C-alpha cells in the first residue's frame, strides 16, 4: 500500500525585509507549494510577515543529541569569551 501521509515542512518567517528568517514551527503538506499556503494560514495571519520559507524536514541534516562530544569543550577556553567588553546591539558602521 502506498504511503499517503503528508510530509512535514519546517517553516521560517521574516517580519521585516532584511531581517533574518526565524524558525517558527512545522506544517504537514503534500508538496512545497501547498506547504507555503499552510504556513501562511498557520503563521502569517496574526504575526506581521513579509516572507516565508518552507523546507522539507527530510532535507535538514542535523546533529544527534546522543553525540555530546560534538560540542565538547575539554580544555579551558574562557579566554575566547568576549566578556571583558560589551558589544552594543547598535550598528556603528555609519558613525564617525
Amino acid at each position: 500500500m502506498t504511503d499517503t501521509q503528508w510530509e512535514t515542512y519546517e517553516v521560517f518567517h521574516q517580519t521585516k525585509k532584511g531581517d533574518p528568517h526565524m524558525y517558527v514551527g512545522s506544517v504537514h503538506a503534500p508538496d512545497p507549494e501547498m506547504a507555503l499556503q499552510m504556513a501562511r494560514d498557520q503563521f502569517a495571519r496574526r504575526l506581521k510577515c513579509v516572507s516565508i520559507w518552507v523546507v522539507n524536514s527530510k532535507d535538514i541534516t542535523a546533529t544527534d543529541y546522543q553525540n555530546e562530544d560534538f560540542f565538547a569543550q575539554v580544555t579551558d577556553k574562557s579566554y575566547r569569551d568576549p566578556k571583558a567588553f560589551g558589544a552594543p546591539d547598535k550598528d556603528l558602521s555609519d558613525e564617525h
Partner: protein
Amino acid sequence: MSIELPFSHPRESVLKFILSLADDELMLGHRDAEWTGHSPILEEDIAFSNIAQDELGHSLVWYTLYEQLTGKPPDAMAFERKWNDFVCSRFVTYPNGDFAYSVVRQYLFDEAEQVKLSSFRESSLQQLSEIAGKLLREEAYHLLHSKGLVERLGDATEESHRRMQAALDEAFPQALGMFERVDDEEGLVKAAVFPGNNVLKTEWLKRVVPVLTNSALRIPVSSKNGSFTYTVQPDEGGRKRNHTQHLRRLVDDLQQVYRLVPGAKW
C-alpha cells in the same frame, strides 16, 4: 455614513442584489466554520477556519453597504431575519458531509467569486467596484487553496478520486444555482450594475471546466465554440427565497445565541 444611489439605478433591485451577495457569504462562512475542530487534518482545520472568518468578514462588508443605503444595521440583517427571508443561493446552505464536498463547494464558490467580483470592477455602481477591488485580494488566496486541493485530490489515489467525483456530482447542479437570475435582472444589467448571471455563468464555466477536467474529474458539460451546454438541472430557488429545510436548521443555529438576549451589545 449614508449614501444615495444614482437615480438611474433601480433602487429595490440593487438592494436585493446586495443582500444576495451578503447572504451567500454569511451562509458559506457558517458552513465552513462548522469544520472548526472537525477537519480531517489540523492544517485544513485552521485553513477552513480562516476562510470561514474571511467569508463572514465579506458578508459584513456587503451588509454595511446595505446599511449605508437603508439604515438597517448588519446584525439585524444577519440575526433578526426569518430563515425564509434570506436570498442566498441554495448551494451555500447545504450541510457539510464528506470533507471532499466542502473542498469542491469552496472551489466552485471561489471561482464564482472571482468572476463576480471581477465583473463588479466595471460596475456603474461605484461602491460595488471599490468593494470588489478590496475583496479580490483576499479571494485570490481562497482560490489558490481550494484549487490546489482539487488539482491534487482529483487524481491522487483511487479513494481521493472516488470521493472528489462523488462530491462534484452532488455539488455541480447546486453550484449552477448560484447563477439563478435575480429580481429585475434586466434593470440591473441595463443600469450596468453587473453584466447579468448568464454572462457570469459562462465566464465561470470557462474557468472551472478545464481545471476539473485536468484533475481527472468528469462534469456533465460539453462546450462548442466557446458556449457551454450541460445535461443537469440547476438547483435554483434560493434567490426567490424558496429554500430547503437545511437553511431553517442553519439559521436556527446561527441566530441561537443572539436570540437569547436580542439587541445585546458585545
